[in-house]
């Protein structure tokens, strides 16, 4: 049923796309069919894999290098209230500083290869995950912590057994938001310097008057993000299985 509805929506979107292509002209928006053909060719030639794997490695590496400390540091800083309060405005400023404007520095520090894209992605993902995780930590029920302290749980155990599970929904939200940004930032990084990657291929297509090439790149990126999101969704469902199950939720929702 749902699958059916989704297909209906897909068809509607494709129709809208086609209409837009007719209206604005194929030099701006290639038709879905032309895009699909170009996509297929790029796939067969191995181009998509060649560029996609590069973008994906930059995104995934940066995601890990930025995301792990981004999710971990708030746990460390959690009990250092003063340190946290002192650092806060600088973290916010660091989050706000446009990394893309600092590309020359990234190039100086990390060269023009994969490393500079990874660093760029990591710097964006870090702040994002850091702030969302911090918000999650603020939502922990202090009574549960107090009870656990009473029976002798130490800081590590509390972090693992209480703070982490309560913050997990936030952390996942953060990761889900960060995933597309990781890809997006990798793409921007490639626009700045590269000879490989989906961002590069989009840019090359743009200067080469190849709108189909642009759309192939965009579609490929959208697919990659959808895939990443689905993977995170599965992971989340596994880790948060204690939440009232679908049945219960359905019940409660039907009740409203």
């Amino acid at each position: 049923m749902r699958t059916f509805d989704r297909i209906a929506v897909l068809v509607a979107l494709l129709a809208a796309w086609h209409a837009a292509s007719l209206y604005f002209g194929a030099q701006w928006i290639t038709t879905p069919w032309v895009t699909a053909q170009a996509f297929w060719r790029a796939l067969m030639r191995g181009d998509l894999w060649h560029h996609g794997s590069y973008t994906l490695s930059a995104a995934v590496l940066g995601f890990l290098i930025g995301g792990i400390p981004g999710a971990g540091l708030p746990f460390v800083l959690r009990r250092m209230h003063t340190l946290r309060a002192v650092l806060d405005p600088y973290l916010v400023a660091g989050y706000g500083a446009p990394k893309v404007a600092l590309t020359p520095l990234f190039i100086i520090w990390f060269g023009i290869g994969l490393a500079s894209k990874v660093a760029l992605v990591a710097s964006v993902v870090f702040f994002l995950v850091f702030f969302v995780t911090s918000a999650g930590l603020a939502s922990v029920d202090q009574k549960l912590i107090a009870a656990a302290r009473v029976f002798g749980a130490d800081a590590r155990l509390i972090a693992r057994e209480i703070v982490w599970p309560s913050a997990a929904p936030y952390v996942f939200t953060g990761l889900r938001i960060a995933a597309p940004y990781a890809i997006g930032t990798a793409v921007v990084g490639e626009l700045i310097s590269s000879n490989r990657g989906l961002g590069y291929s989009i840019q090359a297509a743009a200067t080469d008057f190849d709108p189909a090439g642009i759309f192939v790149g965009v579609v490929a990126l959208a697919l990659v993000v959808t895939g990443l999101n689905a993977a995170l969704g599965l992971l989340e469902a596994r880790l948060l299985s204690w939440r009232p199950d679908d049945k219960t939720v359905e019940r409660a929702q039907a009740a409203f």
Partner: protein
Amino acid sequence: MDMKAHAPFLEVEGLAKRFAAKAGRGESLSVIEDLSLSVSEGEFVTVVGPSGSGKSTLLNMLAQIDRPSAGSVRLRGETILGPQSGPLVPGWNCQIGYVTQEDNLLPWRRLEENILFPLRAQGRLDEAARERVAALVELAGLKGFERFYPSELSGGMRKRASLVRTLSYDPPVILMDEPFGALDAQTRMQLHADLLRMWNVKRKTIVFVTHDIAEAIALGDRVLVLSRAPAKVIAEHRVDIPRPRDIDHLVLAPGFAALFDRIRQALI
């Protein structure tokens, strides 16, 4: 033994607690004022008082999850809490167990894992401990629900689980905040009997808050009566019914009716 049992073990002196004023509410609220009490080792003290009188607040301070505005708490003669003392040490290194009024079970852990959590935290989780806990679980009527999440248990079952969780690790002092409040008469009486039996063997020091006068008499060596907020100890009654007590026929015990009535009077 008797000597030791009557030396002051847990002492509270001049305790006070006031909650700060807040936007939209003019004055600060004084919940406890100049409250003193002392409990000897192995004693079972019950505390009754009207709802909202500050019983939970008192236990929170004894368990060191809240700080008094004035006064001090001493354990074995050592001052463990005062308004200016160092950081709070909840549970005073597993010396003081606390069965809170709300169950405070972890929603993301199954019943079993919740109950074993203290032992795991203290690194004392071995086969023997597991067996002991399994017996407690059975006693509390929770057998068969080990793999349920708290959201899938009834209110009373959650309460019992939280009780078992504290009993499992055997702290020398146990604070209990209406632990049997949500139980049916049957289970309740059985748990009264079980608690007394256990206490008789291990002689824990217990501070037991309840709003049920009969329960207070049935269990306690002494019943403390708190006034409406700001709470003070307004009466103290020694329960002379000899132990071991026959819970089932306690109402018939000599002195029960008279004591019940006296406490009721004090509460009005």
